[in-house]
């Protein structure tokens, strides 16, 4: 393995990693504003991709219009999920909430399959396949585009959490009761976070489908998203971004080194190992806040 191709794996890995960050960002958004770990983010991403296709193919809308319509649809779906599934669980033990998001995961995934079927369909954003060289390194255009969008989203959310609404959401995740006591509508805040997360899922879904097509495997981005979110610290947007790059690079290098040795598919192993190591060594991640538990 020569240095150039290793660097190429690292560079493309970093770009892919940024796209993982986008999935992680959805998880972080919800966690940061309501302390709920969303295990349904992968299915939401998949559902969003199918919704885009539905608008584009069945309704015949141009792809950008279809994406806009899907963003609106997913925003509403996000609100609905909070209203139906999570509002009644506020204050319940974490095991119930986790199980609920798992249930949502199964429901959304299988529901999308029921409606649209399991065959892989393409999504064409019109990104050219022409090679893109960064110095001597060959870069995948679709990944580069995804990375740019991710960084833009990151900038937006960093600004958002400094805005008044963002501060209110952070206050909610700190203390529900205190938030109620100063007139914050906690329910509306949490709903907003789910809606935003669904929008992020739409964008992630579109970008990932342009790379790998639309099928059930989009839901498996959950593992990447969770790993990145935990590695970065579950409530840190910036952490998600950096951790995404880190995971992408490690994955890229590890798979180019390990795949020949282990007979492929070492990426998932790297993810799982990263997740376990993070949790065992530094559970609050690279930039997450530290919670103190008292008897």
């Amino acid at each position, binding site marked *: 393995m020569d240095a150039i191709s290793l660097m190429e794996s690292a560079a493309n890995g970093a770009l892919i990693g940024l796209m993982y960050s986008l999935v992680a960002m959805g998880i972080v958004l919800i966690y940061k504003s309501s302390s709920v*770990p969303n295990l349904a983010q992968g299915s939401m991403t998949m559902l969003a991709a199918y919704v885009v296709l539905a608008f584009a193919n069945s309704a015949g809308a141009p792809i950008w219009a279809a994406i806009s319509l899907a963003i609106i649809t997913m925003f509403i779906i996000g609100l609905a999920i909070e209203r139906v*599934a999570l509002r*009644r*669980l506020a204050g*319940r033990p*974490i*095991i*119930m909430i*986790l*199980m*609920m998001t*798992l*249930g*949502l*995961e*199964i*429901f*959304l*995934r*299988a*529901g999308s*399959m*029921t*409606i649209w*079927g*399991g065959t892989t369909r393409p999504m064409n954003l019109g990104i050219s396949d022409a090679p893109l060289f960064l110095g001597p390194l060959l870069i995948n255009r679709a990944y580069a585009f995804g990375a740019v969008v991710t960084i833009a989203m990151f900038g937006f959310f960093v600004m958002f959490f400094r805005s008044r609404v963002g501060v209110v959401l952070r206050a909610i995740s700190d203390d529900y009761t205190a938030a109620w006591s100063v007139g914050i509508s906690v329910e509306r805040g949490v709903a907003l976070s789910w809606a935003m997360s669904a929008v992020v899922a739409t964008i992630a879904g579109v970008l990932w489908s342009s790379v790998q097509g639309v099928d059930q495997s989009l839901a498996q981005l959950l*593992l990447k998203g*969770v*790993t990145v979110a*935990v590695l970065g610290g*579950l409530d840190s947007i910036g952490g998600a971004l950096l951790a995404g790059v880190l995971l992408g690079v490690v994955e890229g290098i590890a798979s180019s080194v390990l795949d020949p040795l*282990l*007979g492929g*598919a070492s990426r*998932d*192993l790297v*993810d*799982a*190992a990263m*997740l*376990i190591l993070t*949790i*065992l060594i530094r*559970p609050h991640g690279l930039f997450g806040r530290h919670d103190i*538990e008292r*008897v």
Partner: protein
Amino acid sequence: MLFRQAGIFHADYSADRALFPIPADRWMIGILLLLALAAPIYMNTLYLSSYLLPWLIWTAGALGLNLILGWAGQFHLGYAAVMGIGAYAAVHATRAGIPWEIAIVLAGITASVIGSVFAFAALRVKGLYLALSTLALQFVMDWTISHVPAISGGTQATLQAPDIRLLGRAVTSDAGLYYVALVWCVLVTSFMLNLRRTALGRALVAVREKDYAAAVIGVNSFYFKLVAFATSSFIGGVSGAILIGTFYHAVTPEQFSVDVSIQALAMVIVGGLGSIIGSYFGAAFILLMPGVMNSFISWATTKFGFSLGIETLAHLPQAFYGALIIGFLLIEPLGLGKIYNNIRDYLLVWPFGYTKK
């Protein structure tokens, strides 16, 4: 189920500590056991070996998971991996010529040792992080099983399980296999029933409620978490081995994938956390639901004259199953076990409204 009691009254402590303090309950258990024993006589073999048998084994498995989830309060998203370890261990042991009785014990011990790795995660983290690390461990185990040819016999491979032999005699009849499952299920159930009455059970509940607080009153929470994981993994491993030995007769990695972990979790949640009778209900519900759904759909399609694509038919039960988990969490978070208890508590003193439970 007419109990006609005006409350439960005890004259001494041993009566109070009895497993089934109410005579009607004892009668019911007895009758159910008799029915279970006689099942091969009155039940046709299709129902016996494709419904009753997996139900019993999965109930035992769900009870093992319930020990971790309901009693010790530790999240476990990798239970299928533990069952898989047991299954592979037993298959390899029997293929190496070890008698099956010893092989399943070995399977339990292997699962227990490897499953205790999960406990080391539980020592450091809890709640969400424990859930995620057990999920990650499930992936690692899956990967290891399917990528190490020595275990799985190569990728995508199916490993044939030898026929099970008890005391040197091959057990191949449906009734024989059924009895193996029944014995195991009854064993696990009575273990779980008695766990409630032991210091171990009480310590586990203390750890569940608040591990720091338990530590303050002298419960070594790490030790008990370890014991809980080891015990539950033992039950899981043996259940996995028996599932392969009596039901699947061959073992592949997909039989113990993440989805199966979630399915086991769903059994416990739907049945009710910490409820023994609930694990029976939960396992039945989750196992029967796809079949019932399918026949309902085919009934509905013919009745209302519409047709569904193959894809739709394949995924609809799964979607329904997700909806079911959501529904249970919203409506009765303590599951079917709690519903049963509510009915029982009502009937216990019916027609009197007052009760001492």
